[in-house]
C-alpha cells in the first residue's frame, strides 16, 4: 500500500462525490448519512484495492457497497426504505424551467407538475429501482442488490416507466 493508491482513491472520491451524494440523498439518506456512507464506501474500496483485488467499474462497485451499508443501517433501525430526509426538500420543487418564451414555460411547468405527481405516486421500491437503473445498473444487478428476481425488478420498473411515459397523454 502506498501513497499512489491513496492518491488514486482520493481522485475517485473527488470525481464521484457529487453524483454519489445526490444518489444517496435521493435514495433517502440525510446529508450527514450520505457523507458518512461515501467515506465508508471509499475506505472499503481503498482496503479492497489495497489487498490486491481489482474493481472493473468503481462507481458501480461503490453503489453496491453503499447500498448494502445502507440496508444494514436500516435493518438496525428496523425500517424499510424511506425518503424522509430533509434534504429531499429540493427533490420535487427544483426542476429547471427553461422555456424559450413565457407560453412554452407555462406548458413546461404544467408538464413538470404532471411528472412530479406521477413520480410522487411511485412506490418506494419502484423509485429505488429506477434511480439505480438511471445510474446505469442492469436489471439483474439491481435484482441481486435487493435479493429479488430479475422479473420482479423488470415488472416493477416497466409499470413505473409506462406510467411516466404516459403522463402527458393522460393529462
Amino acid at each position, binding site marked *: 500500500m502506498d501513497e499512489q493508491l491513496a492518491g488514486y482513491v482520493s481522485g475517485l472520491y473527488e470525481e464521484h462525490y*457529487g453524483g454519489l451524494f445526490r444518489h444517496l440523498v435521493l435514495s433517502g439518506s440525510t446529508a450527514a448519512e450520505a457523507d458518512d456512507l461515501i467515506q465508508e464506501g471509499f475506505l472499503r474500496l481503498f482496503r479492497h484495492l489495497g489487498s490486491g483485488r481489482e474493481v472493473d467499474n468503481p462507481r458501480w462497485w461503490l453503489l453496491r457497497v453503499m447500498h448494502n451499508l445502507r440496508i444494514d443501517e436500516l435493518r438496525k433501525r428496523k425500517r424499510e426504505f424511506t425518503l424522509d430526509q430533509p434534504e429531499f426538500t429540493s427533490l420535487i420543487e427544483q426542476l429547471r424551467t427553461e422555456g424559450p418564451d413565457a407560453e412554452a414555460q407555462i406548458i413546461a411547468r404544467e408538464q413538470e407538475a404532471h411528472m412530479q405527481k406521477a413520480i410522487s405516486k411511485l412506490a418506494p421500491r419502484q423509485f429505488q429501482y429506477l434511480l439505480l437503473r438511471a445510474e446505469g445498473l442492469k436489471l439483474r444487478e439491481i435484482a441481486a442488490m435487493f435479493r429479488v428476481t430479475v422479473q420482479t425488478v423488470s415488472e416493477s420498473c416497466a409499470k*413505473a416507466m409506462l406510467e411516466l411515459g*404516459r403522463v402527458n397523454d393522460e393529462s
Partner: protein
Amino acid sequence: MNRKLWQDRDGHPSADLLLLHLEDELEGRAAEILRAHVDQCAACRKECEQLQLGASRFTAFRDSVVVPMPAPRTNAFHERLLREEEERSSASFIGRLRGQFRINTPRRLAVAFGGVSLCLIVWISLFLSSPRQSVYASQLLDDARSASDSLIAHSKVLNQKVRLRRGSLVIERSVHHGRPAPVEVREPSIDSKLQQNLDLAHVDLNDPLNANDFAAWRAALSEHTDTVQETAQGVIITTRATGAAISEGSLTLSRSGWRPIARSVEVRGEEPIEISEVSYDISDSPSMVAASPIGALAPSAASNVNAAAAPVEVSTTELETSELDLREAFHSIGADVSAAPEIGRSEQTVLYHASTTKPGEMEAIREAASRIPHVKETEKQLARLAEPPPLAGGSGAYTTTPPLAAALEAKLGDAQAVAGFLESLRSRSTHVLAEAAALDALGKRYSVDAIKALPPELRGRVNRLAASMLSSLQHDSADYVKALSPTLDEMAHERNIAEPSDDGTNLPGCLPWQQNAALAQPQLQDLAKDVSLLFVANRTEKPVVLTSDQLLSDSLRARLFLDLHLMSTCQLFGAN
C-alpha cells in the same frame, strides 16, 4: 420463455418482457422470439417507445434535481486514507510487539493496555494542541472559502442576515456574498472599546461572519492552538490565543455547504461578542435580493438597529424563525407531545399556551421559551389542535360486552395480568396518538403551500422537525403494534380470521408528510378503539352487540395499514 406466456396479453408480450428485451437482458431463443415479434408488431413497438420515454423522463427528472451538497473534502479524506494505512501498519506492529515483549497472558496484556492507555491520554492531550488540528482547521477554512467562491463562480448570491450581540447590544446586518461590496457603514451607537475589540478580532461589521476575516485574525496571532469539534449544527473551529487581548475566537461552519453560521470572540475581562446567522438564502442574481424574504429585513445598513437604543420592528421572517425556534425547543424537551402546546401569532409576537401535569415540565417549557425572542406565554387557549385520544368507558346508558375479555384472561392467566396488559397497551396507544396529533397539528400549520412560502433555511428546518417527529412516531407505533400483535394474531388464528392481504391498495406511495400525518391519526384511533371494544366494557347510547370477528378484522386491517403506510412507506419532505 415462449409464446404461451403471452397469451394473457392477447398474443403480445408483457411490458416487463419488453423491458428485458430493450435492456438486452434476454438471451438465446427467448431473445430471438421476442425480437421477431416486436419487429412485426406496431403495438409492441409503441409500448417500447413509451417505456423508453418513461425512462428518459425519470432520468431527466433526476438530473434536474438540485441537492444542496457540501464540497467534497478531498484533502481531509486523503489524510484519512493515509491514517488508515498508518493504523493498519501499527496494528501489525503491535502484533510484532506482543510477540517480542511476550505480552501473551491476560495479566500482561492488561498491564500493557494500562500503560498504552496512559500514553494515549497524554498523546490525546498533546494532539489537541498539535499542529494536526491546526492543519484541519486551516483546511476547513479553505473549504469555507472554496464553497463561497464556488457560489460566486456559479453566479449565485448568498444573502445572510446576521446578528451581533454583546450583552444587551444587538446589531443586525444583511450581507450579500457575490454582490459588489457595500459602502462601509460604521455603527454610530457602538462604543469605541467595542469597535477596538472588533478591529482586533478582524470582525467587519458589514460582514461579521466572513471566514477570510477569521482566518486573517488567526494568521496574525503569534502563538495559538486550534481545536475542531463536530456538532449537530456544524463544525466549530476554536482558536485560543496566548498573550493577546482576544483570548479565544471560534467560527462555526454549517455541515451542508461549509457556510459560516456563527462566530464568537472572547475578550479578556469583558463580555463575549456573539455573532450568529439569523437566516439565509441563495439567489441567482443581485436583482432577486430585494424580492427575497430576507432582503426585506434590512435592505440598507441604515435600517440596522441597536436594540438597546430603540425597539426593533419584528419582521415576518423573524416571527417565523421565533415560532420555529419555539417548536424545535418544545420538541427537544418532548413537550410537543406531552403538553400539547398551542402556538399562535399576534402581529409582533409568537404566543403559546401549554398545560401539563408532569412535574417540572411547565418550568422547562417556560425556560425554553424565555430564550427565544418575540415569544410570550398566554393564558388563553389559542385553538383546538387535536382530538383527545379515545378512552374506554363512555357515558351511555348501555354497557357493551367485550367479546374477547374472557379469552384474554384465559390466555394471560388472571385478571391482574389482563389489567397490566391493557394498561400497557393504553399507555402506548395514548402516547402514539399524542405524537400523531402533534405531527398532524404541525402539518396543518405548515401545509405544503405554507412551506413553499418560507425562506429555504426555515423550510429545511420545518422538514427536519417533521422528520424527527415522524421518526419518533414510527418508532413508537412499531413498539405499540409489536406489543399488541402476538395477542391479536393468536386470537385471529383461533377464529380463522385471515390476515388482510397486501394487494397494493394499502400502499398510497410517496405522500407529503402532512398527508401521512393526517392519515395516520384516524388509523391509530380506529385501532385503539377496536382493541378497547374487544377487551374492555364500554358505555354506549344504544344497545350494541359486538362481534369479535368484525373487530378483529378491523384491528388487523388498521394494523396492516399502519405497518405498510406509516412505518414502511416513503414520506416526501419537501414543497412538492
